[in-house]
């Protein structure tokens, strides 16, 4: 199978009351595209449409230059890895892999050799006679990958394969999949609703919401420059404030939001009086205990109203005219003596403030 790029050309699909609308996407060989979206956004439907389980209303699917739009699912050469891997429970590990061989290889010595090679490549030789129920999560994943590879897929689709897994092993499993994809050079789409998972898996990220692709780009771009308020809040920009441009500066503007005025810099040109949203990630806010002199740019006074443990950090909420949320390391919290009711100053660095046009 020749490895080429996947091209989705304005896919449209209606499924009951759900609509997939004008999905355009390109995934190059060796690239991992992660589709991130909340539950019900249509992520799985999109994957299943690419795999050929749903009839498209409009649009085309090209893979390696071939038009797959009307091809039956069984002829598409797409490796689909489902949640919990969907291994055949009544077949052994080697039988699971053997099932995926093309008709011409099944039962032949060449076919058996291929199964053997795949078992060896994924360190499954000692498990070849086992049934899926006797395998660990990681072993199941390796069987699922080996089985999918037996068809020489031109594209890999992953539908939340780790959703039923314990958190500590997810990252290892993700790294294993990434390594396999990079080695084979097969383009891949990964679907998840977990932004942490998206960050370590993705080369490119696409945000899907209510059946529409809202933003596609590299991971850092989507996380730091979300295209709209939905994406911003979905990728963890917890501080989003509505404001009005009160003064246009060169390459930026002054934005009045509530009783505060923030100075922002952005590539988009803004007009006086325009309504915008200002967003900043909680980890980008600098929290200091010293009271600032009034009038300093982008520094505002705030009072701590809650401190919650959040993994290795503390998540602190402030009242500053509007609610603010920031992450502070535990060490910093103790060192600077932050307690409930502490008065602090919050610094919003220019480079971390992101302007989102109000639509």
């Amino acid at each position: 199978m020749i490895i080429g790029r996947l091209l989705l050309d304005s896919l449209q699909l209606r499924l009951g009351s759900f609509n997939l609308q004008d999905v355009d996407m390109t995934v190059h060989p060796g690239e991992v595209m992660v589709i991130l979206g909340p539950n019900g956004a249509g992520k799985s439907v999109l994957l299943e449409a690419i795999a050929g389980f749903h009839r498209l209303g409009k649009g085309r699917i090209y893979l390696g230059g071939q038009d797959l739009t009307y091809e039956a699912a069984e002829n598409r050469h797409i490796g689909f890895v489902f949640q919990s891997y969907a291994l055949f429970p009544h077949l052994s590990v080697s039988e699971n892999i053997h099932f995926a061989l093309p008709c011409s290889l099944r039962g032949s010595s060449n076919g058996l050799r291929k199964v053997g090679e795949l078992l060896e490549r994924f360190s499954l030789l000692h498990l070849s006679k086992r049934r899926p129920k006797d395998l660990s999560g990681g072993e199941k994943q390796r069987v699922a990958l080996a089985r999918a590879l037996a068809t020489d897929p031109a594209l890999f689709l992953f539908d939340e394969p780790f959703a039923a897994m314990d958190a500590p092993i997810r990252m290892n499993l993700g790294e294993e999949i990434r390594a396999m994809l990079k080695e084979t050079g097969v383009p891949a789409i990964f679907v998840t609703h977990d932004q942490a998972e998206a960050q370590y898996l993705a080369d490119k990220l696409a945000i899907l919401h209510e059946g529409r692709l809202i933003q596609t780009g590299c991971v850092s771009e989507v996380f730091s420059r979300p295209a709209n308020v939905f994406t911003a809040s979905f990728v963890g920009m917890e501080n989003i404030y509505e404001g009005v441009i009160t003064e246009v500066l060169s390459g930026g503007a002054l934005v009045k939001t509530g009783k505060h005025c923030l100075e922002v810099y952005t590539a988009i040109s803004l007009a006086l009086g325009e309504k915008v949203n200002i967003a900043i990630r909680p980890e980008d806010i600098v929290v200091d205990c010293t009271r600032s002199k009034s009038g300093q740019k982008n520094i505002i006074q705030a009072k701590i109203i809650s401190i919650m443990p959040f993994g290795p950090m503390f998540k602190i909420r402030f009242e500053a005219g509007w609610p603010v949320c920031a992450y502070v390391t535990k060490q910093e919290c103790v060192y600077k003596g932050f307690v409930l009711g502490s008065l602090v100053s919050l610094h919003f660095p220019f480079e971390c403030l992101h302007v989102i046009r109000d639509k």
Partner: protein
Amino acid sequence: MKQRYHSSSLSLLFWLAGGLLLAFIVVPLFGLAMDQTPASIHRVLAMEDVRQAIILTIEAAVITSLIAQLMGVPLAYLLSRSRLPALRIVEAIVDIPLTVPHTVVGIALLISFGRNGMIGGPLFHWAHISFWGSFAGIVLCMLFVSLPYTVNAARIGFDNVDPRIEKVARTLGAGPWRIFMKVTLPLVWRSLATGFNLTLARSMSEFGSIVILAYYPETAPVKIYDLFLQFGLSDSSAMSLVILVLTLLIFILFRYFLFGKKEPMGFDR
């Protein structure tokens, strides 16, 4: 520590109700068994027509169960997989035999499949197949009343197959036939076998419709009724016990082979 279920008055009451129910099932059957002597059993088993009735019943029930599988499993698969709203009506139709009195079934079958019936007439005329007083008639009655057990058991089996397993098989290059034969069927065989067993048991016990469409050749339940009318309780109860033991034996052996070494299938967790 394990929860002690008998501690509340509610569970005590429930156990009492459940116990009464079990006693209600077991006591009459136990009484039937206690009422017999080895000599009475021996006497009925020595009767040629009794033995023939038993063999005929088993034969007809096995054939019925096989036909039921052939006809019922495809329908069960359609009911499980298709989302057509019209299939909800089909579901209701499948369950009709469970609700209709069996004498009514007999009369309805007689009207359609009798020698002058709209189906039975042409079949008799062109193929010399008669359902009136024949082995085919017995099978017809058994099939009508026991089909729902085959369809419903298979349906439960198909419903329990994770749809992702069939989907992944397609992405691995398997067409619909290969998926059905190599993936779906192996995952549901226990459900199919359960359906076969229930259908077999239900067929063997059918009386009401058979007595109307095909009194002769006599099946075991009809023969018991015949013995009761001709010779009273002693002979009929002895044969009843023989049939009871036979049915239970088939049922228990089947369950043992099916679930003896229990291994849940269908879902891979």
